[in-house]
């Protein structure tokens, strides 16, 4: 993976992470359910994190 692609991927993850924190805090503060769109963003974050954790296990074993 070239450095530019890696940097872009890291920046995308950072943006997604911020978005998820905002969603979790907002829905909690408002005491409401997540919308379908908000849930989809959280699911995307979970997918990303799953892949990262599995990659970490494989790289370290």
């Amino acid at each position: 993976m070239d450095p530019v692609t890696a940097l872009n991927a890291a920046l995308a993850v950072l943006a997604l992470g911020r978005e998820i924190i905002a969603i979790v805090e907002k829905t909690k503060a408002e005491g409401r359910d997540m919308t379908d769109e908000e849930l989809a963003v959280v699911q995307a974050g979970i997918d990303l994190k799953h892949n990262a954790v599995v990659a970490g296990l494989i790289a370290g074993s």
Partner: protein
Amino acid sequence: MLKRLLVLGLLLLVPAALGACTTTTPDGQTIETPNARMAAVELAYGKVLDIVDAERKRGRLTGARAAQAVRLLQAAKAALDTARAAHKAKAGNLVTLLIVAEGAIAAVAAYVQSKETSFLTFAATGGELTGGAPLGFAMKPTEGRLTWTR
């Protein structure tokens, strides 16, 4: 090296806050809608990913245990994906599938915090999960079978 840095970056950047909340109203009442149920299990999975990553960083997940953890994570993710599909299709068996996903998630948390290498041995003889996994439910080996408590 670059790949390792990227993986490390991903783990640092995807927030631990994913697993840090429940779906409740400000006065503490649980919201019981399909989206709320789905979100709660998603966040529990985020939490178990944090637990697995913490155990790996402590050096407790290497070799065969790391390989077993990967298999368990993939099984839990498959259960989660099945529940997601049911949620998307507004299927009537969503709650059942979410319970299955919860069980698979709890199994990962319990295994990675045990000292066993074999998951089957752990499932048959392992001790009850005693802490460090605030998932809202826990896996408890009982008479050779895994059950979970809320």
